[in-house]
C-alpha cells in the first residue's frame, strides 16, 4: 500500500509538469488539443493525489505502524474521528492535505474555465500547476508521507491530546482551505500579467474564489480562537503568537482585496494595487507555512522544526521576484485613466480602509519578524508581545470601524454636504447617544467609549441602508415589511450580504473590546466546602471526583455557582485529565456562557490528599458576542456567495466583450 502512495505522488508530479508544458505550448501555437490534454492532466493529477490521501487515511484507520507517519501521529486507542484528522496532525500529512486541496481547486478552476477565458485560463492553470509542483517536489523528495520504519512498533505514539478536540478537527482544514483557495485568484492575476489581458476579467472570474477563501480564512481564525479559548485554559482566545499572526495576516489582506476590487470593477482604478494585494495574500500563505515550519521565529506552538524552511523561503522569494518583475514589466499598461476626485467619495473611503487593513497587516508582520530582524541588525533578539500588537492595532481598528460606517453610505465620485447630513444625521445621533449612555453607566476608558460609539454609529448606518432599500422596494411593489426585507437581501445579495458581514464584524469587535477591557480574574486555593466570589457570583467547591480508565485518569471538581441571593444557578465541573500515553496532563475548562459575560473556571491544581483544589476563575464580559459576530460574518458570506441570476447575466455580458461565440456564452453563463 505505501508504495502505491509513493507511486501516485510521483505520477502526480509528472502530470503537473506536463500540464504546464501542454498549456503553454497549446496556447502559444494555437493548438487547442494540447490545452484540452493539459486540462485532463490536471484532473488526472488530482486523482493521483486523491489516491495518496486515501492510502494514508487507510493506513491511519488500520493503524499500520510500519508507516513512520502513522506510528508518530496515531495509536490503536485513538478515537476513530481523530485517526481521520491525524491526516493533518503532522507535517508530511498536512503538506499532503494541502496538495490535495490545491489539486482539487485547480481541477475545479480547469472545469469552470473549459470554455471561458481562453486567453488567460491556460496560463492561470499553468501557475496553479507550478505551485502544485513545488508541493509535490516536497512530498516526493523532502518530507515523504509514506516512509517506512525499519522496525514496526507495536503501538503508535498517539496524537497530541491538545489536538484531540473537535475545534482542532475543523480548524486546520478550514484554514488550509482558505490558504489554498487564495492561490486561484493569485494564479489568474499572474496570468493577466503574463498575457497582458489586464482588464477586470481576471477579477470577475475569480471573485467567488476570493470570497470562498475569505470565508474559510474567517472560519479558520474563529475556530482557532475558539479552540484556544476552550482548551488552553488561560481565559483568552488570542495571544498574538506568530502562528496566529500567520493565519491573521492573509485574512487582513484578503479583506482589503475584496474591497479594493470593487473600485476596479466600478471605476477602473487601482489595478496595480489589486494585483499587488492578491500577490501579497498568496505570499503570506507561504510565509505562514514558512515561519511555522522553519523554527526561525520561536512560537509557543513549537511545530517540528524541520529542514523545510529553506525550501519554502526559496519558493517564496522566487515567486515574489517573478511577480514583482511582471508588475514592473506591465506597469505602463496598468496606469489607470481615472483619478480620485474627492475625499468625500466612496472610493476614497475604500482606499483608506485598504490602508488601514494593510497597515494592520504590516504591523503584525513587523511584530512577528522583529526578533529575527533585531538579531540580524543588533545581534540580540528583541521580542514584542501582545502589548505591542494591542497598542498598534487598537487605534487602527477604530479607524477601520469608522470607515466601515462611512464607506457604504457615501456616494461614488463625490458627495454634497446636504447628502452627507441626510445620510449620517441619524447614525451619528445613535453613536453619540450610545457614548453618553455608556459613560453614564460608569465606563471611563476613552478607548471603550469611542469603540462603543463608533460601533453604534456603524450599526446605525447599516440600519439606514436597510430602511432605505426596503422603502424603495415598497414604493415600487407593495409588499409587507418582512417580505420586502427578504426580497431586498435576495435580489441584492452581494450588497446586503456584505452589510450582514459588517454587522457581524461590529458585533465581534464589541465582544473583543468588552472582553479585553473588563475581564476580571480570581486565583484561589480552597478546601472542600469552602467558597469564594468573583463579580456577583459565589463559587462553592464541593469536592473532587476521580476516575480511572485505560486511556486516561481524571479529577473533576464540582463547583456550585450561586447568585448573590444564594440561589444555585448551576454546578460546573472543571477537570484535570492525565493522559496515559503519551503521559501528559491536560486541563478541561468549564465555561458558563451568557450574553452578558462568561464564567470560566479552571481547575489549576489539586493537592495529593484530594481535599484542596486551586482554581483560576475568569469573568469575561461580552465575549459571547465575539462568537455571535463570527457566526453572523459567516452567514453574511453565505448570502454573498449565493448564486444570483443577475450576476450570471453580468458575467455573460463581461464575457461577450471577450468572445463573440454565442454558444460559449450560453455555456459559461449556465455553468457557473
Amino acid at each position, binding site marked *: 500500500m505505501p508504495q502505491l502512495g509513493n507511486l501516485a505522488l510521483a505520477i502526480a508530479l509528472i502530470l503537473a509538469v506536463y500540464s504546464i508544458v501542454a498549456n503553454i505550448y497549446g496556447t502559444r501555437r494555437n493548438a487547442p488539443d494540447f490545452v484540452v490534454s493539459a486540462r485532463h492532466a490536471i484532473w488526472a493529477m488530482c486523482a493521483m493525489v486523491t489516491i495518496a490521501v486515501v492510502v494514508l487515511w487507510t493506513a491511519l484507520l488500520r493503524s499500520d505502524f510500519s508507516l*513512520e507517519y502513522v*506510528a*508518530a*501521529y496515531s495509536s490503536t486507542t485513538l478515537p476513530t474521528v481523530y485517526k481521520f484528522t491525524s491526516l493533518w*496532525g*503532522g*507535517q508530511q500529512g498536512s503538506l499532503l492535505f494541502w496538495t490535495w486541496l490545491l489539486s482539487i481547486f485547480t481541477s475545479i478552476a480547469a472545469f469552470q474555465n473549459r470554455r471561458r477565458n481562453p486567453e488567460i485560463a491556460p496560463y492561470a492553470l499553468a501557475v496553479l500547476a507550478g505551485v502544485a509542483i513545488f508541493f509535490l517536489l516536497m512530498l516526493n523528495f523532502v518530507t515523504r508521507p509514506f516512509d517506512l520504519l525499519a522496525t514496526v*512498533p507495536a503501538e503508535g*505514539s498517539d496524537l*497530541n491530546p*491538545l*489536538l484531540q478536540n473537535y475545534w482542532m478537527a475543523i480548524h486546520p482544514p478550514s484554514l488550509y482551505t482558505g490558504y489554498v483557495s487564495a492561490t486561484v485568484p493569485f494564479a489568474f492575476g499572474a496570468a493577466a500579467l503574463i498575457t497582458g489581458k489586464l482588464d477586470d476579467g481576471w477579477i470577475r472570474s475569480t471573485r467567488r474564489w476570493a470570497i470562498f477563501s475569505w470565508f474559510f480564512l474567517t472560519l479558520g481564525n474563529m475556530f482557532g480562537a475558539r479552540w484556544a479559548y476552550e482548551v488552553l*485554559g488561560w481565559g483568552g482566545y488570542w495571544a498574538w503568537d506568530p502562528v496566529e499572526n500567520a493565519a491573521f495576516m492573509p485574512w487582513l489582506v484578503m479583506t482589503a482585496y475584496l474591497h479594493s476590487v470593487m473600485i476596479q470593477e466600478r471605476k477602473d482604478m487601482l489595478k496595480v494595487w489589486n494585483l499587488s494585494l492578491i500577490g501579497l495574500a498568496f505570499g503570506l500563505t507561504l510565509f505562514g507555512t514558512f515561519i511555522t515550519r522553519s523554527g526561525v521565529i*520561536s512560537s*509557543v*506552538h*513549537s*511545530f*517540528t522544526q524541520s529542514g523545510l524552511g529553506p525550501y519554502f523561503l526559496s519558493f517564496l522569494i522566487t515567486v515574489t521576484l517573478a511577480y514583482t518583475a511582471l508588475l514592473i514589466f506591465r506597469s505602463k499598461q496598468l496606469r489607470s485613466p481615472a*483619478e*480620485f*476626485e*474627492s*475625499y468625500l467619495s466612496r472610493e*476614497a473611503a475604500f*482606499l*483608506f480602509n485598504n*490602508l*488601514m487593513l494593510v*497597515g494592520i497587516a*504590516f*504591523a503584525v508582520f*513587523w511584530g512577528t519578524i*522583529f526578533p529575527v530582524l*533585531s538579531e540580524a541588525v543588533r545581534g*540580540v*533578539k*528583541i*521580542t*514584542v*508581545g501582545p*502589548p*505591542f500588537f494591542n*497598542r*498598534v492595532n487598537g487605534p*487602527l481598528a477604530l479607524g477601520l470601524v469608522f470607515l466601515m460606517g462611512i464607506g457604504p453610505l457615501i456616494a461614488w465620485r463625490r458627495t454634497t454636504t446636504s447628502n452627507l447630513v441626510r445620510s449620517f444625521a441619524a447614525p451619528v445621533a445613535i453613536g453619540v447617544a450610545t457614548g453618553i449612555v455608556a459613560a453614564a453607566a460608569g465606563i471611563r476608558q476613552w478607548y471603550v467609549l469611542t469603540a462603543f460609539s463608533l460601533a453604534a454609529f456603524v450599526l446605525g448606518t447599516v440600519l439606514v441602508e436597510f430602511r432605505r432599500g426596503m422603502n424603495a422596494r415598497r414604493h415600487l411593489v407593495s409588499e409587507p415589511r418582512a417580505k420586502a426585507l427578504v426580497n431586498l437581501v435576495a435580489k441584492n445579495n452581494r450588497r446586503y450580504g456584505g452589510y450582514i458581514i459588517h454587522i457581524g464584524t461590529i458585533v465581534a469587535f464589541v465582544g473583543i473590546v468588552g472582553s479585553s477591557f473588563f475581564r476580571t480574574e480570581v*486565583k484561589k*486555593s480552597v478546601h472542600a466546602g469552602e467558597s469564594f466570589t468573583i463579580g456577583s457570583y459565589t463559587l462553592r467547591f464541593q469536592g473532587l471526583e476521580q476516575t480511572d480508565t485505560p486511556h486516561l485518569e481524571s479529577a473533576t471538581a464540582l463547583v456550585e455557582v450561586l447568585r448573590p441571593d444564594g440561589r444555585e444557578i448551576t454546578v460546573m465541573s472543571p477537570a484535570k485529565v492525565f493522559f496515559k500515553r*503519551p503521559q*501528559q*496532563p*491536560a486541563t478541561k475548562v468549564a465555561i458558563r456562557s451568557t450574553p452578558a459575560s462568561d464564567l470560566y473556571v*479552571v481547575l*489549576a*491544581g*489539586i*493537592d495529593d490528599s484530594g481535599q*484542596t483544589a*486551586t482554581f*483560576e476563575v475568569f469573568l469575561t464580559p461580552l465575549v459571547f458576542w465575539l462568537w455571535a459576530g463570527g457566526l453572523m460574518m459567516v452567514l453574511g458570506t453565505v448570502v454573498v456567495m449565493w448564486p444570483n441570476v443577475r450576476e450570471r447575466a453580468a458575467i455573460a455580458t463581461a464575457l461577450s466583450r471577450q468572445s463573440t461565440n454565442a454558444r460559449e456564452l450560453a455555456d459559461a453563463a449556465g455553468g457557473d
Partner: protein
Amino acid sequence: MRIRPRFFIGVGLIALAISYLIFSSIRTTSEYYLTVTEVAARQSELGGQSIRVAGRVKPGNIGWDPNSLTLKFEIAPIPDIDASGAPVRPVVASDPVSFRVISAGEPKPDMFAPGRDVIVEGKLGPDGAIAATQVMTSCPSKYKPKQAQ
C-alpha cells in the same frame, strides 16, 4: 481637475501615523529574548529589565506550593541538536549554567515537567534569580517522530 496631490498628502499622513505607532510601540513594549547562556553572559547589564528567557527545566530542586501558587525551579540551557534532530545530551541536575526561577501567583502550567522547554517572562534580580510573571511551556503541537521512538 488636479486633486491628486491632495490624496498623496492624505495617504502619506496615514502611512506616517501607522509607522509612528509601530515605532513608538516597539520602543515601549520590547523585551530581550535570550537563552540561558546569553543571560549568563550579559547578567550585569540585564538587572531589573523585562526579559524573556528560553531554557529547559532542570530536574531536581523543583518546588510547587499550591496554596500560594508559588513555583520554584531552575532553568538550564537547551542542549544543541545534532544533525539527525536528536538532542546531543539530556539536561542533568548538575548543569553548571542555570538560573533560579520563582513564579508566584500563577497556576503551574499543565505541561510543566523536568526536561521540558519553557519560556520564562520576568525580571532578573540582583541575587541572580528570575522573578517570573509568566512561565510558558512550549506546546508540542507536533511530535517529532524520532523522539517518539
